[in-house]
């Protein structure tokens, strides 16, 4: 029943491959031809291809996926569970080796449809914005080519129906991230032009590689246990995933899912900038601001959250692992938020805010609120993209300056930027009824109301406390940023101040659209207490709700909340008020301290705890710690490998001394062969020829004993066996060989005959010496061979 139901909810749709293909084609066009063509063509192709992907995605979701989803809900109402409603498309059989078979397959289910919408919609707006932001850049076509390549890779990531295709997209977005962070690799004005930008790109790439390595190991483990990497097939392999992974011995038995999930989580912390691999994201702000908005806020960094939500059935198998996911998220959320207090670069504040918000999403998926985590991903994409693009607009106006201490009072000169920025600040701070309030509150509520059997009873309270503290910090540093940038007196120098202007329409229009989304989209996911439909959760339900197969193991995997607590609406409303209050306190503290520039009391407070303040300002010196623990040892090892292994062992000893001696000796010996005496050469030639003639004229002298076509070493009495001479060389027919056999005593038992095979039955048990004679009657050459044969 399960299978028939599954197939009825799955349909093949050829629309799917157009979704990633269109931006990839745009990228190919712009990267190959863009330089030669005008800017009009370049941005038309770039924006057009993303817009087309958006339209195709919407058509596929609305006209093909929605009916399937509807069918799922009808089935669910009758108590049946019929798999996940999904559109699939298998482009071709990509890898086929042994029992490995990987399709280049795409899968559009409710989860990936949300991601496709976010990527193409927000991506399109950012493409439009970039037309204004990058208008004066030399490498216009290269920029849009990379941006399209990124969009295509990201779409491949979310649409892949197996982890390999997902990983191709995963690496593809990593490459594009690297390319775009170092986009201004030759930017002038420093001693080594653009060097910092290029090394920021390298840092992002290398840190991600560490995570990716763990990700690959996780995939290997899943494959070796379940024999497939297809996410649909994997859901039927719960038993295999629950199997024991026991290289550590039975005493330390853990399930495959726990180990594989932990490895995948490490991969996710790399891509989604969580502790311990978050260090690359702040540096990634070296890239152009639209890149920061698209890649390092709205889409790519959410890939880790998406992956956990996609593989929710793997993660749910281990409550301990789920606890780790949520705890990583909670600690990161608070940790990054506190760093945001002391940053002075407008983009760095937003970068740490992104890390912090990603932490929230990990809390969401870590407490089993997969829909909640993805909902926060969804709303975050809007308000954070809006914030970054707003910051870009500010930087644009400030002639490239990014230090908020030199800003202030921009609200009058940049009205549209100011309003959209303010709306997004309110949204991210979680003020009712803006979108951040709903998504963040859903996560907070689920964090507190979900017990985790893998951890102690204190666990939900700890996660909730960390998340709530992070919420306070978020409200504080965001409004610190807002007040320092837009309110008070302008602190810029005369020249910059003279130059401040509102950005062109193609930059402000995306801001307005995103701000509307940031304000209103929370209404898609109303909390349960209102008894109004939560469209977002309903839409994702088929993906995160498990079938009976998994439900059987559910007491192990689903973090179950204490019944009374989970049902208590009063508590839910109370918690909402608490988080609202906390956010408002943060905002008012920021207002009182930063309304008119940095107030003197800030200086007194930081002086009072100057050690701690410096630690926070230096980002807890994590970079320095990693430099000491990881980078320096690697560099020392590299230095050793270069100076000792490469230069001395290989270049000097192996190549110059040993290799020189070998070539010299061999050469000195072999040159004697080439002595110029043609007669000696001829001797070699004739000798070789004679050898060839000798070998090819030898009659075959080996034979085999066959019984019913099989080679045997012994035979039963009376059993007929075939004796057959083996015939090396060619032209056997023309050689007209003759064969004669003797079966025991050495006297020939058969006459000379032209057939190489003969049949004979040995009647008495014992050992026989079988003898084959071969002759070539034309040359009178003969050969013979004897073999022992046992008859028993």
């Amino acid at each position, binding site marked *: 029943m399960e299978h028939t139901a599954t197939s009825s909810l799955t349909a093949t749709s050829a629309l799917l491959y157009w979704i990633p293909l269109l931006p990839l084609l745009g990228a190919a066009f712009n990267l190959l031809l863009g330089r030669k063509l005008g800017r009009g063509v370049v941005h038309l192709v770039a924006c057009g291809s993303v817009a087309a992907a958006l339209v195709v995605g919407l058509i596929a979701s609305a006209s093909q996926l929605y009916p399937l989803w509807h069918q799922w809900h009808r089935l669910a109402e009758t108590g049946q569970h019929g798999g996940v409603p999904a559109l699939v498309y298998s482009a071709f059989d990509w890898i086929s080796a042994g029992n490995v078979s990987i399709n280049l397959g795409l899968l559009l289910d409710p989860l990936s449809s949300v991601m496709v919408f976010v990527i193409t919609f927000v991506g399109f707006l950012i493409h439009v914005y970039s037309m204004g932001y990058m208008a004066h850049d030399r490498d216009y076509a290269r920029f849009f080519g990379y941006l399209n390549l990124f969009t295509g890779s990201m779409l491949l990531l979310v649409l892949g129906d197996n982890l390999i295709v997902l990983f191709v997209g995963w690496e593809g977005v990593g490459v594009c991230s690297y390319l775009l962070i170092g986009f201004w690799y030759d930017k002038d004005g420093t001693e080594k032009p653009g060097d910092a930008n290029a090394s920021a790109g390298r840092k992002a790439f290398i840190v991600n590689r560490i995570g990716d390595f763990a990700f690959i190991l996780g995939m290997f483990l899943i494959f070796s246990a379940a024999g497939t990497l297809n996410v649909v097939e994997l859901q039927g392999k719960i038993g295999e995933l629950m199997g024991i992974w026991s290289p550590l011995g039975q005493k330390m038995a853990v399930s495959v899912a726990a180990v594989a999930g932990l490895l995948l989580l490490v991969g996710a912390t790399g891509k989604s900038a969580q502790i311990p691999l978050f260090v690359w994201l702040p540096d990634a702000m070296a890239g152009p601001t639209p890149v920061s908005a698209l890649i390092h806020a709205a889409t790519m960094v959410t890939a880790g959250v998406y992956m956990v939500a996609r593989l929710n059935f793997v993660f749910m198998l281990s409550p301990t692992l789920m606890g780790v996911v949520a705890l990583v998220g909670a600690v990161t959320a608070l940790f990054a938020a506190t760093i945001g207090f002391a940053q002075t670069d407008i983009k760095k504040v937003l970068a740490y805010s992104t890390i912090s918000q990603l932490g929230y999403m990990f809390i969401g998926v870590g407490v089993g609120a997969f829909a909640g985590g993805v909902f926060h991903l969804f709303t975050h994409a809007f308000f954070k993209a809006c914030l970054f693009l707003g910051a870009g607009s500010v930087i644009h106006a400030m002639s490239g300056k990014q230090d908020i201490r030199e800003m202030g009072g921009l609200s009058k000169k940049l009205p549209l930027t100011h309003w959209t920025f303010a709306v997004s600040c309110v949204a991210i701070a979680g003020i009712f009824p803006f979108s951040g309030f709903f998504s963040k509150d859903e996560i907070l509520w689920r964090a507190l109301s979900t017990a985790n059997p893998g951890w102690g009873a204190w666990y939900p309270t700890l996660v909730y406390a960390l998340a709530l503290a992070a919420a306070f910090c978020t409200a504080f540093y965001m409004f610190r940023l807002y007040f320092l940038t837009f309110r008070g007196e302008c602190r810029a120098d005369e020249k910059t101040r003279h130059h401040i202007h509102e950005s062109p329409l193609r930059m402000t229009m995306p801001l307005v659209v995103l701000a509307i989304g940031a304000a209103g989209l929370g209404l898609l996911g109303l909390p349960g207490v209102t008894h109004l439909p939560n469209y977002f959760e309903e839409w994702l339900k088929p993906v995160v709700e498990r079938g009976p197969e998994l439900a059987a193991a559910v007491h192990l995997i689903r973090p179950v909340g204490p019944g009374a607590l989970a049902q208590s609406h009063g508590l839910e409303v109370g918690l909402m008020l608490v988080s609202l209050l906390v956010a408002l306190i943060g905002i008012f503290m920021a207002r009182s301290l930063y309304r008119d520039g940095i107030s003197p009391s800030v200086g007194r407070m930081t002086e009072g705890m100057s050690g701690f303040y410096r630690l926070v300002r230096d980002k807890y010196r994590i970079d320095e710690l990693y430099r000491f623990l990881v980078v320096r040892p690697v560099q020392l090892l590299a230095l050793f490998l270069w100076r000792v292994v490469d230069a001395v062992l290989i270049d000097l000893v192996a190549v110059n001394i040993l290799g020189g001696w070998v070539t010299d000796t061999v050469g000195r010996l072999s*040159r004697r062969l*080439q*002595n*110029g*005496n*043609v*007669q000696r050469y*001829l*001797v070699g030639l*004739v000798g070789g020829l004679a050898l060839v003639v000798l070998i090819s004229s030898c009659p075959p002298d080996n034979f085999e004993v066959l019984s019913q076509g099989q080679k045997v070493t012994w035979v039963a009495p009376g059993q007929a066996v075939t004796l057959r001479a083996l015939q090396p060389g060619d032209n056997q027919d023309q050689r007209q060989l003759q064969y004669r056999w003797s079966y025991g005593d050495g006297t020939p038992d058969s006459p000379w005959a032209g057939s190489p095979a003969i049949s004979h039955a040995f009647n008495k048990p014992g050992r026989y010496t079988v003898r084959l004679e071969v002759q070539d009657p034309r040359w009178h050459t003969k050969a013979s061979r004897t073999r022992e044969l046992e008859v028993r």
Partner: protein
Amino acid sequence: MIPTTYVLGLSLILFFIGLLGVLIRRNALIVMMSVELMLNAVNVALIGFSRARGDTQGQGLVFFIIALAAAEAAVGLAIVVAVFRTRRTVNVDEITLMRN
């Protein structure tokens, strides 16, 4: 009628005499003569086969080989003369410029 085997035996003997001459004689003129001997051994074998098969293909081939041998002798002798003019010797052991 003389058996073909005898003709082939003669051919074989001539061929190996020629081969030995090519391999061991020092005088370039003798070496060339030995090469001619090997060619003629082949001619004898071809005539023997031609007679045994009763057709003339082998005989036709022999004429080609005779013509080829004449041309080869002319070129070879010219080379030997040229070598003798520059090096005052036709000893092949001493003509080893193309070495190492």
